């Protein structure tokens, strides 16, 4: 067995990442505090990324690129050919509102990959966003979670509609794989198994 040096799980296996994830340039942001503690979560709908960040982001000339959603929208016209070649995907963060952007892009199934960035593993918005992509926007292709992605959330991520997971750098993706099979027969219908258990099995 060859050991693949990669953090990416696709379905049930660790594979090499053939996509180049384009990050946003860092900017100085004031650290928000609440009762002396640093606030870990951004508010839904908070302006992000800034226009400056979008303008400063450089799109590579070739290869499969995973672009920030707002960057994709800015370069949508000039990327049409690469989109057609299945070489463009996009990502957004858990506090971004995506409805308007998705309407602007038209058919989202022209993108082979959408990724959701979660800054803190405990930010459960990622689950609802995946559900909306699968159920409301009917996205059928690869849906990836990246950022603070850990073994103990993997089962929920899968059930919410993700099928690939870029495990946090300091954790072993082969260990994380075990999280996908924590439970064998869940009660409720969700994005992966649509029917609740009482419709799947005679009880």
């Amino acid at each position: 067995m060859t050991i693949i040096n990669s953090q990416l799980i696709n379905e049930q296996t660790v594979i090499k990442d053939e996509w180049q994830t384009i990050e946003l340039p860092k900017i100085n942001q004031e650290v928000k505090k609440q009762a002396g503690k640093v606030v870990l979560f951004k508010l839904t709908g908070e302006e992000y990324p800034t226009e400056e960040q979008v303008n400063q982001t450089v799109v590579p000339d070739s290869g499969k690129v995973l672009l920030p959603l707002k960057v994709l929208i800015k370069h949508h016209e000039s990327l049409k050919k690469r989109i057609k070649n299945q070489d463009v995907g996009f990502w957004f963060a858990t506090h971004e509102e995506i409805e308007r952007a998705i309407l602007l892009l038209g058919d989202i199934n022209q993108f082979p990959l959408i990724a959701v960035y979660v800054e803190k593993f405990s930010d459960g918005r990622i689950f609802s966003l995946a559900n909306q992509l699968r159920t409301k926007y009917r996205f059928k292709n690869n849906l990836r979670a990246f950022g603070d992605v850990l073994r103990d959330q993997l089962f929920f991520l899968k059930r919410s509609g993700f099928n690939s997971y870029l495990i946090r750098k300091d954790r072993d993706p082969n260990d994380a794989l075990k999280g996908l099979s924590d439970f064998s027969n869940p009660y409720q219908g969700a994005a992966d198994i649509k029917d609740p258990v009482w419709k799947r099995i005679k009880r």
Partner: protein
Amino acid sequence: MYIYDQIDQKLVDERVNQYSDQLRRYLNNELSDEEFRPLRLQNGLYIQRHAPMLRVAIPYGMLSSKQLKKLADIADKFDRGYGHFSTRQNIQFNWPKLENTSKILKELAEVEMHAIQTSGNCIRNITTDQFAGATPDEIVDPRYIAEIIRQWSTFHPEFALLPRKFKIAVTGSEKDRALVQAHDIGLEFSMNIVGKMVIKVWVGGGLGRTPMIGSVIREELEWQDILTYCEAILRVYNLYGRRDNIYKARIKILVKALGIDKFKELVEKEWAFIKGGPNTINEDELNRVASFFTAPDYKESESINLDAFKDDKNFTQWLSRNTHSHKIIGYRSVTLSLKSNQSAPGDATTKQMHAVAELADKFSFGELRVSHEQNLILADVEESLLYELWQQAKLHNLTTPNIGLLTDIICCPGGDFCSLANAKSIPIAQSIQALFDDMDYLHDIGDISLNISGCMNACGHHHVGNIGILGVDKDGSEWYQVTLGGDQGNTASIGKVIGPSFSSEEMPIVIKKIISVYVDQRHEDELFIDCVKRVGIEPFKSGVYGEQV
């Protein structure tokens, strides 16, 4: 009651394995404190002042005698010989060792019990009326709906990490005993004019730091849609609820900020995509679950002749306070009081739990319930056996005839155990119970609820107590703020603060003064709460603080 099939049992067994491995990885430093925190909380495990506290789920308060015996044994084997029944109809063990928690969960799984989602930012134990199935004012038995919601919410992948905790209560009676208006979602079942079962849906109620009575989001929801509608509410909350400030993270803050109309608009928009979808309940599933909650094998039984006992005042007092009317002639529901002043409100010893389990076997079809007032209920007792039951329960100090009276205090564990508390609450409850130990006087004062919370989190539901006591911290010492006029049920309201807070020593006297004002002011047969509502809090203020110059 509901009995597990292989699917239920396997989920609980898999959970034990999952948690055991998480605990192993934590003890092995493979998981950080921060990473382990939500995992242990969603298994009911808190790190407390003295030791971890483990909260075990009692779904909608229903227990079999077999399960209670297991809880008694766990208290004996892994704790200090007692457990604490909480206001969410659960039980808490205050002294387990962290390393033993997996073993406890394994033992619980043997009797179809667990600690899943008893804490953490997820959907918590579903609560309901402690007299469900037995009360004469029942329209719909809420337990099978509660069980359907329990299954749906267990490990719900989308709502595993909400902005904050989420509590759902269900009632199906004319009189609401489940506090539905003080829950994140409250479901009130009834029959509409054409005899169809419908649900009034309340949203955004809650106690805690910012107490609020919920708003009605739907007057008549069809029962088939209950899960998809809850899903739409929770999705909007999960996406838009505040995560930047723990004190503003409950759904009530979101509903208030948006206004119920705007909130409803967002919910209905989400619902449009899932209405009628796979999680829609059908008749077969409703009937399958309902079949577990059929009436027990009632005998034809005669009503008790009260005249025969009129000289036995202790028994008749108990009969009037601790037994409740039943839908079947010749039966009553019995409350076994856990408010005796010999121990903290809601505490039961291993011996008491075993005794109650035996009483349940002998007198009430082997089942019992936990009430949110922290007492234990035998729901189906033949009237002709009440005297015998009373005598036997008395041996275990379970017959204090104070249900609904001043000393039937609802109380959180407070500063003695809980690391969140600002102040102790159990000693306050006990000092009040000690001062009001004259049963005749208590019966004369009549129905009154006194609720104590050791901090803002309001586990003792102080806002909805007729008298509420809240522990506050002032410059590092413990003080108590008093509210009056709170109420639960169909006329739910939030109590008003009467003025500056008191020291713990002052508290019993303050309560005594409040009661004297009531005794002076009341009309004949007027309940305390009605009196407060009629005269307002001013006379009580003067009575407690003296005339203002």
